[in-house]
């Protein structure tokens, strides 16, 4: 491989993605279709920019693995356990139902039943990658449809193992006993691997991550996150299980850890790029020649695939009571074929059940169904939006008022902790962000919701819910980061009111310029309290000392505010500060004077004078 070739691959991929995806989004077709089209264009069928013998599909599969890890991170074990019925119940209904209907069609068209069963099982699978990517793109992850799709996709991943074992058995190529033996062995290995992941994840992962976080090297944490996912995937591949399934399990095990947000944020860009690569690879795999060779066969497979699955899934969505709005997404996202089908067809071909031409036609049909998915979804949305327009009025009335948005506290040091504790004492919960793993550890012992991560990262803030937060408390002690966060908040989360801690006067001004209204200088009030103690010790009455402190505070704040507009001019600032201090001292002296005069006058007895006037 020449040097030019080494650079050519990433160049072609990146250029194709950068050109095709924004274009597709601009056409409102979604990024996935953009990647697919880019893949078709650079693939062997059209421009042939990529040599066929590259390891791209393997690398690309890591995108799916990372995606499932991230999906797992969103699912606490408790929630996963609660989903066991939809996973095994509805998941089986989908897989077996669709396969049964497709088999029936196959047999009716005169194909042998064994062949029909194998091909149908392959076609009944859906693309986890496309489905979950679309869910994320449309922010449907937490909806009923989103969870149902996830359940079905998970079952398909689990079912992949027995289905692959079934193909040789059905293939009539003999040696079925041997295959059964292998299945048992594989099953034992698989169970062992899952046990390793669960116990390893429980016992070893968190301390390991904490230790790595201690090193305070962000890129090493990222590397550790990648290592974790790839390691799990490798282990699963070793025992013949789905890599994605293993990554998903690892994700679930870390869903309750304090590093969840940080892992999410670190892996997100890798996932995005590799998933893009995955879709490009699918596009490249779309063999247009095979389609051209037997267009009728490909199209009839495609039609059978989509129609049968849509029928089954529509029935399911009704039985599952999925809200009307979400039904098109549920039906269409599961109706497409899946990348797992490719594996089944490959195996069937190697077992001699189908020939190469049939294989490429089936692959083409599945790939076409993937490419059609975004288009079908847009169509489904149109139909649904018309339906919704009719139902809209009714829905509006039924809508509950929005849930009160949370409070985010950035920085869990001494300052942030007092705020958080005071909130909790008043029955309010806050999401706390910090990148000091020790502080987090101590807070978590008191059952706080604390996330490990850099609060000045936009994606991190988003995952912590900044887009819906009502109040953002900036309690971090680094001045530059504090100002950066205030500016980020003003730009991206204007709905949130910022309450900030200022380390000194300069910081106070910077925060004011960043649009923050609620700022406290961290040492000011405690200094005033000490001043009160000193005044009391010199003989002043405690309450009088308090009043003096309050007065000082008020004047000080007034002068501070007056100087905010002068920030850009240093000379004016110094002059104003000097003048302010002078005026302030004069003012305080004048007030003392006035108060003394007041007291003298009262002692002088004005009321006698008043009584005379009255009478």
């Amino acid at each position, binding site marked *: 491989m020449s040097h030019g070739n080494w650079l050519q691959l990433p160049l072609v991929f990146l250029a194709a993605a950068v050109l095709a995806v924004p274009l597709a989004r601009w056409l409102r077709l979604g990024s996935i279709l953009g990647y697919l089209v880019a893949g078709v264009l650079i693939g062997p069928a059209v421009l042939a920019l990529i040599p066929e013998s590259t390891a791209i599909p393997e690398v690309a599969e890591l995108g799916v693995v990372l995606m499932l890890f991230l999906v797992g991170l969103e699912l606490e074990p408790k929630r996963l356990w609660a989903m066991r019925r939809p996973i095994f119940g509805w998941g089986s209904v989908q897989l077996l139902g669709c396969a049964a209907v497709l088999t029936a069609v196959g047999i009716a068209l005169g194909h042998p039943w064994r062949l029909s069963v194998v091909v149908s099982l392959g076609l009944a699978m859906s693309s986890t990658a496309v489905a979950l990517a679309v869910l994320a793109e449309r922010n449907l992850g937490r909806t009923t449809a989103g969870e149902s799709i996830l359940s079905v996709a998970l079952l398909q991943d689990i079912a992949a193992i027995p289905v692959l074992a079934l193909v040789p058995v059905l293939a009539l190529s003999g040696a079925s006993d041997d295959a059964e033996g292998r299945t048992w062995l594989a099953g034992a290995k698989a169970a062992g691997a899952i046990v390793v992941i669960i116990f390893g994840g429980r016992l070893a992962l968190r301390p390991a991550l904490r230790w790595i976080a201690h090193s305070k090297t962000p890129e090493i944490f990222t590397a550790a996150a990648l290592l974790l996912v790839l390691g799990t995937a490798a282990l699963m591949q070793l025992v013949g299980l789905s890599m994605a399934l293993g990554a998903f399990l690892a994700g679930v095990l870390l869903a309750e850890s304090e590093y969840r947000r940080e892992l999410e944020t670190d892996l997100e860009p890798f996932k995005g790029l590799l998933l893009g690569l995955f879709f490009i690879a699918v596009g490249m795999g779309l063999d247009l020649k095979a389609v051209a060779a037997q267009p009728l066969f490909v199209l009839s497979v495609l039609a059978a695939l989509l129609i049968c699955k849509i029928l089954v899934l529509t029935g399911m969505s009704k039985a599952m009571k999925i809200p009307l709005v979400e039904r098109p997404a549920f039906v269409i996202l599961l109706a497409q074929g899946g990348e797992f089908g490719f594996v089944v067809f490959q195996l069937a071909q190697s077992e001699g059940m189908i020939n190469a031409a049939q294989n490429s036609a089936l692959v083409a049909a599945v790939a076409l169904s993937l490419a059609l998915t975004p288009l079908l979804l847009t169509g489904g949305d149109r139909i649904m939006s018309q339906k919704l327009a009719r139902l809209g009025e009714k829905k509006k009335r039924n809508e509950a008022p929005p849930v009160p948005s949370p409070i985010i506290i950035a920085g869990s040091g001494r300052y942030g902790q007092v705020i958080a504790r005071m909130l909790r004492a008043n029955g309010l919960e806050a999401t706390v962000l910090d990148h000091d793993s020790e502080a987090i550890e101590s807070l978590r012992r008191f059952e706080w919701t604390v996330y490990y991560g850099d609060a000045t990262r936009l994606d991190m803030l988003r995952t912590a819910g900044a887009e819906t937060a009502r109040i953002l408390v900036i309690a971090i002690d680094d001045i530059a980061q504090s100002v950066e966060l205030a500016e980020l908040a003003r730009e991206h989360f204007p709905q949130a009111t910022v309450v900030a801690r200022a380390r000194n006067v300069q910081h106070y001004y910077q925060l004011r310029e960043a649009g923050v209204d609620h700022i406290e200088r961290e040492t000011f009030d405690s200094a005033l309290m000490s001043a009160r103690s000193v005044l009391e010790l010199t003989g002043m009455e405690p309450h009088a000392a308090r009043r003096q402190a309050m007065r000082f505070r008020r004047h000080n704040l007034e002068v501070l505010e007056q100087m905010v507009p002068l920030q850009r001019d240093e000379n004016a600032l110094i002059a104003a500060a000097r003048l302010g201090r002078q005026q302030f001292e004069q003012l305080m002296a004048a007030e003392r004077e006035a108060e003394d*005069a007041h007291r003298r006058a009262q002692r002088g007895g*004005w009321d006698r004078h008043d009584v005379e006037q009255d009478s």
Partner: protein
Amino acid sequence: MPDSTARDILVLAAHPDLARSHATRTVLDALRASPAADRVELRDLYRLYPDFHVHVEAEQRALEAARLVVMLHPIYWYSMPALQKLWWDEVPRLGWAYGPGGTALHGKDFWLVASTGGGAEAYAPGGHNHHAIGEFLLPYQQSARTCGMSWLQPQILHAAHRATDEEIRAHAELFVKRLEHFPEWCDTAVERSVGDEEAVDFDERPALFSTLGGGAA
């Protein structure tokens, strides 16, 4: 003559926990929603001074701008809430509001709008408070007088805890209407103490609204 563009009425509201108040909050809500709001400077003392640090100069400026000074609060222990009392202790200073040279408040009208826990019948020689409400309000009356302000008949809502929404609303509406029509309704019985040149005109005017509940003051 009332100047419709200037804020010539100062309302000093004092309730330590407005969120849990019923009567005072209803009155304030009605005020904010009414056309009278345009001529009213509303100062919610517990909101302005949660730390009990009254800004004397700001309060004095507000007083100077007003022709009518209204105090709106619940009666606590036969008197005003603590912050309102602190306001009295600190704002009307010697030489400003009273005593030699203290004429800043002369000629202004003073009106108390309050609510009591006890019913009207409790404020009577035979009732469990043993005295008419007016007797409890003597310190208010004399304080106003010392500052040269005219005492307007207070508007009192008795038994505020037991009052129906209807009764509270009527109380609030009467309050707001009176602010809107100030000084047309001011009592003929108003006692003008020190140097009020306008006092004469009011004698010929009929009262627009009857007083509600009315103490025996």
